[in-house]
């Protein structure tokens, strides 16, 4: 079987071109020069066409000789036609003007997104996301995706992403092709992606192409803008939570472009002085920032260079000074965590049909907890520090080979060196120069190599389209070796009337596990690698579905089944931070999980009014030998039913209205069901017995056996855009949870009214986010 697959791959990757006239080039925005990803280039009146790739590049063969018309179209832009007279290969670049919608031109056949190969890809244009209602006036890319079928957001208000029953660590999140480990601020309420800096946002839920690997449940591929190639543009934005400044423009006489965007949470400017005044000597401040930047340089016709940097940190600091602690005393507690990512990419057009890409990346994630105390009068110093960090150094080479119009070969190899410090503690104390303790302890540094090679064969025939590929994924931790061949197949069979049947099967392995400290509301995440004794996680997913385009609507229905294995979780009652002994002894391993469901999606992405409705029916669970007595239990974010509706209506040239409604059945939780006597320490008068059995403890039923009440809410938003004197002003007004639904956040027991003699213990539900209006202002100049 393996030999057959290898032969098939090699056979398909041979020379397949029979034609000789090749057209190639890029599609760009005429105003800014930004490449347009996914623009459709086709021969008018035929179904022959291709979509531009992530660089806005296309390449295809003329299917027949003679005069023909080549059309380039893209949603939100005026289509452009070019007459092809001769039979010579030539470069044709398209510069599209913003304007009418795609629906106003005739496209024969389905628009060639990756979905036509059976990939479960969802794409919402960033411009549309920006118009969606936003919590606290902060448009959030990840939160917008929670309105899609098969995606759960986790706890109320958070920008989490749990795809088809997968954990939050099972999402491969790529920024310009480089993986990120932490993608949220304020513990998950805001994601790190600044919508003004992002060009494209693709989410794969299944049918993963072979180019992606390393995570089990989804791929989020985020591309940053390249910047305006024509003129310098600045953006200033102020919202309730943060302020932003962005600048983009050309350099090197238009050969290059850049974009820099800085966002900062600004409430600490108010919090810190306010808390200092209120508590006399105590101040507290929280802030985060994001810096997104990208530099692009077109060295010549064949060579293009890219350099991207993302830096983002969250920081929480508490300071205590003299007035509170006493003269000459000072104490500081700070938490800091975030990513640093840099990527250099060289894109070389070897020939119109062969485009290789070389990439060098560095990613760092770290979490630092530092407590310091100093008494200057007594010369006492104490400090405690906990540090957890990951450094990844990556090198990869990919290529695209555009053969015949029905064949596209993609391949690549790469390696990543992981350097991890899962958790190091350092504790120090001294008095009058004498050191009382100075210890470093914890998990030692770990190194590991990860390597991959892949091939994708995208075959687009009249009766079937498929992407058959494979990925060789290798991981070499200290003392261990894991090598896996991951088959990837997605296919679609076109039926009548723009209808296709789709199917996909993928296998994925995850070499980096995430452990979350079980303080569920605000968990702290730590990444650890697969080791010789902790194997990588594994997933296998099978999906079948149907896609149909009718008029301006796209409809899809999909059934999926996912099997997860070799999952890890903390043993009950264990935590990570501060551990002095091996973390591997604190986890349950070899866990399994299943996830299955049905997803329905009706999307109108063209025309005046746009939006979608979706429904998903899902079930996902987990099983660990020593958790829940080995019995299978529901996954934390197992939601049986979910319905979403999103609508966007332009009210006038300047006003836009949007609304979103979501309904989801309740999440499962573990609830205390009963009470029992426990043994605790007690006060005593003689030393005969220090233990008492009079205290009460709690009895829990099976894990996650209690369902919270259903969740639903509606958000609305208005945007007002006005252009005048070369400036653009945007007001965004929104209301979160319009009808003030009290959604469940957590449950607890309490005596009903003890002050009135009613000591009945009853269960209470606490809600978190009520109706919240918001406003933000953006100026572009």
């Amino acid at each position: 079987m393996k030999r057959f697959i290898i032969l098939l791959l090699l056979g398909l990757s041979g020379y397949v071109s029979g034609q000789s006239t090749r057209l190639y080039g890029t599609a760009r925005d005429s105003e800014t020069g930004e490449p347009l990803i996914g623009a459709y280039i086709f021969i008018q009146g035929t179904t022959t066409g291709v979509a531009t790739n992530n660089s806005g590049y296309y390449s295809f063969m003329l299917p027949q000789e003679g005069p023909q018309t080549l059309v380039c179209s893209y949603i939100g832009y005026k289509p452009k036609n070019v007459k092809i007279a001769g039979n010579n290969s030539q470069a044709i670049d398209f510069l599209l003007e913003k304007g009418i919608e795609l629906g106003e031109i005739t496209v024969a056949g389905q628009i060639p997104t990756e979905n036509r190969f059976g990939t479960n890809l969802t794409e919402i244009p960033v411009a549309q996301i920006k118009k969606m209602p936003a919590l606290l006036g902060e448009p959030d890319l990840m939160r917008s995706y929670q309105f899609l079928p098969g995606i759960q957001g986790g706890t109320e208000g958070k920008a989490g992403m749990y795809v088809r029953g997968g954990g939050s660590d099972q999402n491969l999140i790529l920024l310009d092709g480089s993986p990120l480990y932490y993608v949220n601020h304020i513990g998950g309420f805001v994601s790190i992606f600044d919508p003004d800096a992002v060009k494209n946002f693709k989410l794969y839920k299944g049918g993963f192409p072979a180019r992606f690997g390393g995570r089990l449940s989804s791929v989020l591929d985020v591309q940053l803008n390249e910047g305006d190639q024509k003129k310098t543009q600045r953006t200033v934005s102020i919202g309730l939570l943060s302020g932003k400044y962005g600048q983009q423009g050309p350099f090197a006489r238009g050969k290059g472009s850049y974009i820099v965007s800085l966002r900062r949470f600004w409430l600490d400017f108010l919090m810190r002085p306010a808390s200092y005044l209120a508590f006399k000597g105590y101040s507290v401040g929280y802030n985060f920032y994001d810096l997104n930047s990208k530099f692009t340089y077109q060295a010549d016709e064949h060579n293009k260079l890219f350099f991207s940097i993302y830096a983002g940190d969250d920081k929480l600091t508490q300071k205590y000074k003299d007035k509170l602690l006493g003269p000459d005393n000072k104490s500081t507690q700070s938490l800091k965590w975030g990513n640093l990512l840099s990527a250099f990419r060289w894109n070389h057009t070897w020939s119109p049909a062969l485009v290789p890409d070389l990439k060098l990346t560095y990613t760092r994630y770290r979490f630092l907890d530092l407590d310091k105390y100093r008494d200057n009068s007594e010369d006492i110093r104490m400090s405690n520090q906990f540090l957890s960090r990951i450094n990844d150094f990556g090198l990869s080479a990919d290529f695209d080979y555009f053969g015949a119009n029905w064949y596209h070969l993609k391949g690549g190899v790469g390696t990543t060196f992981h350097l991890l410090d899962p958790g190091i503690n350092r504790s120090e104390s001294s008095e009058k120069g004498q050191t009382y303790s100075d210890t470093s302890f914890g998990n030692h540094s770990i190194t590991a190599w990860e390597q991959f090679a892949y091939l994708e064969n995208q075959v687009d025939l009249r009766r079937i389209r498929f992407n058959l590929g494979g990925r060789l994924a290798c991981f070499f931790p200290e003392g261990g070796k894991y090598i896996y061949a991951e088959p990837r197949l997605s296919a679609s069979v076109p039926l009548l009337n723009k209808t296709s049947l789709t199917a996909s099967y993928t296998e994925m392995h995850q070499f980096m596990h995430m452990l979350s400290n079980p303080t569920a509301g605000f968990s702290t995440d730590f990444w650890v690698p697969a080791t010789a004794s902790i194997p990588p996680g594994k997933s296998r997913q099978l999906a079948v579905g149907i896609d149909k385009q009718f008029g301006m609507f796209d409809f899809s229905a999909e059934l999926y089944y996912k099997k997860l294995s070799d999952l890890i979780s903390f043993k009950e009652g264990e935590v990570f931070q501060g551990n002095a002994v091996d973390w591997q002894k604190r986890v349950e391993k070899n866990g399994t999980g299943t996830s299955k469901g049905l997803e329905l999606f009706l999307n109108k992405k063209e025309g005046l009014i746009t939006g979608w409705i979706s429904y998903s029916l899902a079930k996902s669970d987990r099983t660990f030998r020593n958790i829940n007595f080995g019995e299978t239990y529901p996954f934390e974010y197992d939601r049986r039913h979910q319905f979403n509706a999103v609508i966007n209506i332009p009210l006038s040239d300047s006003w836009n209205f949007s609304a979103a409604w979501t309904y989801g059945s309740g999440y499962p939780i573990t609830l205390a069901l009963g009470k029992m006597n426990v043994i605790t320490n007690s006060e005593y008068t003689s030393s005969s017995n220090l233990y008492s059995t009079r205290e009460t403890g709690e009895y829990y039923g099976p894990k996650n056996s209690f369902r919270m009440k259903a969740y639903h809410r509606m958000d609305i938003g208005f945007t007002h855009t006005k252009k005048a004197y070369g400036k653009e002003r945007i007001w965004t007004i929104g209301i979160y949870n319009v009808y003030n639904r009290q959604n469940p956040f957590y449950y607890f027991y309490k005596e009903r009214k003890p002050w009135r003699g009613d000591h009945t213990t009853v269960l209470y539900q606490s809600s978190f986010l009520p109706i919240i209006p918001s406003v933000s202002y953006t100026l572009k100049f």
Partner: protein
Amino acid sequence: MRQLYILFLLVLPVSCIREVEMDTDQIPKQLVVNCFFTEGQAFMVDVSRLAAYPDTTDRAQTNVTVKIFADGNLLGQLPHTGNGLYSNKNIVPQRGKAYSVEVSVPGYPTATATDSLPAKVPIRGIELRRNAGVYDDGLTYDEIAVAFKDTIGANYYGLMNYDYGTYSQKWWPSHMFSSDPAIVAEGISLSDYPEFLIFNDEIFTGQEYKLRFNVGDCCDYDYINSIIYLETYTYSGYHYKKRLLKHKPYTYQDPFEPYEPVPLYTNIQNGLGIFAGYMRSSRKVVTEN
């Protein structure tokens, strides 16, 4: 991270709380048997029942047959002494034997468990450092180092510090925290601030060890009058106390800590609770301020 939530409070209005109905029929019919036993003290077994959360009636079981076995041989029955407690002053545990308990109540499955006594580890020395640091509220705390030698047969430890209350004329367990590697290895954080510490000998097997912990000067005493207890546990006792330390009740009404529940450990077959042996050594600390 909890502070971060508190910060979030400043910018987001916290919403409301409402009563919801719950199904109380999900409680299984089970006995709860609790007994920590040690050398030289008669077995004292507490027998109660598992009750539904809203159930406020007495849980103590007063009509129970409690049998104690040593190495499989019946030593005798424990009579009821009141409030669900069963004890016989003539049945006293000794080291080197495996003790079992069998608890029978009509209408409940018979609950059983077996455990033994671990080795005793004496305290070799105590070091006290006054005013080692300052709490957030400005009060000082002390640091105490307890020296002992890990021995064969002792793998699991616990530590308690009792202060004498002159007004109440009682000894009270004091809250503690520690940055000692053996303590943080258990995942006990500074914010747990428990009345007892537990640890194991993984990082000092067979060696002499000096464990440091901090206790508060919350009442600003003129002098210290306290007793430090070092206990050793069996596997079951250690896991029970470790889970107990992290076991916070649902009634802990903190909107920013909707925690992950930590079920209590049990070694009782067909029931709940704990039947575990322990050994204890102590040292008194009296110092003028």
